[in-house]
């Protein structure tokens, strides 16, 4: 099976019903995407499929064949994406476990809505749970990322 992950083509030999998350983590070694609940309830495993946020823990890998898959490692390894810059500037992270998913959801939102309102942010990121409770800073950082031009990439 051929997968296009972060702009690179990978040939993987896995069952078609294997969740994309485990292909990314265990087969391709991209461990930035996290396992949280395993049933699309928490958002820690969020990746992009053709730019749209999906829950990789419940997505059979066969569904992702032929699509552009983007993980947190594909955003900017140097942390230079406006969303990452805003995250660092406002010290959003605490333990950090959910933040890959939060950032992926925020990047997708800004691509769709370059100037989101609080309501847009709550709607788009409401499914991304943070046990540390960083929600206030996440919302502020999404606004900051919008100012930094996060929707243009």
């Amino acid at each position: 099976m051929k997968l296009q992950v972060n702009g690179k083509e990978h040939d993987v030999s896995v069952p078609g019903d294997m969740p994309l998350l485990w292909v990314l983590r265990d087969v391709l070694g991209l461990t930035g995407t996290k396992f949280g609940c395993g049933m699309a309830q928490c958002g820690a495993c969020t990746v992009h499929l053709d730019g749209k946020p999906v829950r990789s823990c419940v997505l059979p890998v066969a569904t992702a064949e032929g699509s552009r898959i983007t993980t947190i490692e594909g955003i900017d390894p140097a942390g230079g994406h406006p969303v990452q810059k805003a995250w660092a500037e406002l010290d959003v992270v605490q333990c950090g476990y959910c933040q890959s998913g939060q950032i992926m959801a925020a990047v997708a939102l800004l691509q769709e809505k370059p100037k989101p309102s609080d309501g847009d942010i709550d709607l788009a990121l409401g499914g991304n749970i943070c046990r540390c409770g960083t929600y206030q800073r996440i919302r502020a950082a999404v606004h900051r990322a919008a100012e930094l031009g996060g929707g243009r990439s």
Partner: protein
Amino acid sequence: MNAPLSRRAFLTHSALAGGGLLIGLSLPSPVRRSFAQEGAAAAPAIKPNAFVRIAPDDTVTIFLKHSEMGQGVATSLPMAVAEELECDWSRVRCEHAPASPDYVHTVYRMQMTGGSTSTWESFDQLRLAGAAAREMLIAAAAAQWGVPASACRAENGFVIHGERRARFGELAATAAQLPVPTSPKLKDPKDWKILGKPAHRLDSPEKITGRAEFGIDVKRPGLLTALCFVWGFAVVADSAQFSAAVSELTDPRYVGTALTIQTSLGFLLTLFTIRMVPPLRDWIGWHGALAILALGPAFGIWSMRRLRRLPEAEKMAGGRR
């Protein structure tokens, strides 16, 4: 409101006013006593090398004795070291320390994180480590320049004497050879430049790029194989009942042979059953496949009952069967 209210007083008052229950956490007195003694005993055990590493390029790595779980110790504890070290804060990195007696909790005497103790248990220890490292760097520079250490000072990653300056990175290797000062001088809190001021988290860069390594991300190649080896050696891999019966009832000269035959037959059987399950499941579903597998244990039980009725079986379990 006229007098400023302390946090503790606020909590007590608000609990009383609200009629609610306030449970204060106080340390049991033996722990408190040992902490009081610890203050006096902590001084000789200053180990700057356990907490600070200065690279030739001036990067200062501070080893974190506590687990960063979001509470911010990967930033606040390095601040305590850096304040006394007088290094350039922008060159400070933080790494989790390995397991070592150097990092035991000064009160609980084990390497642990919890109970909101991280900052107060290590604050003095870390500042002393930073101050000791600073004095060693100053001593190294003073010896190099042939001037008294008291005429030198450290500032923002340099040791300075008049017009002369030396980078910490240049001095680190020499300083590391020097004796560790037993009672380094701590700064007056009014001179603090880093502590008590806001700082950006040191752990953001790795956590916003997916590089941070969490427990679930740890890969130890060979660990599974090693576990299988231990398992294979330590765990009885066949039916304990059958093996016991065979070893007790067989002619002593053939016990080894009999056990080998029994184990080999057992594994031979699994060769078929394991191969059989996937096609059976596809054909008649899980319920049917498991029902067919249950025939084996059923046959085993029937055989054991039959064995128990034979007069030879009296010898099993030393006659106490």
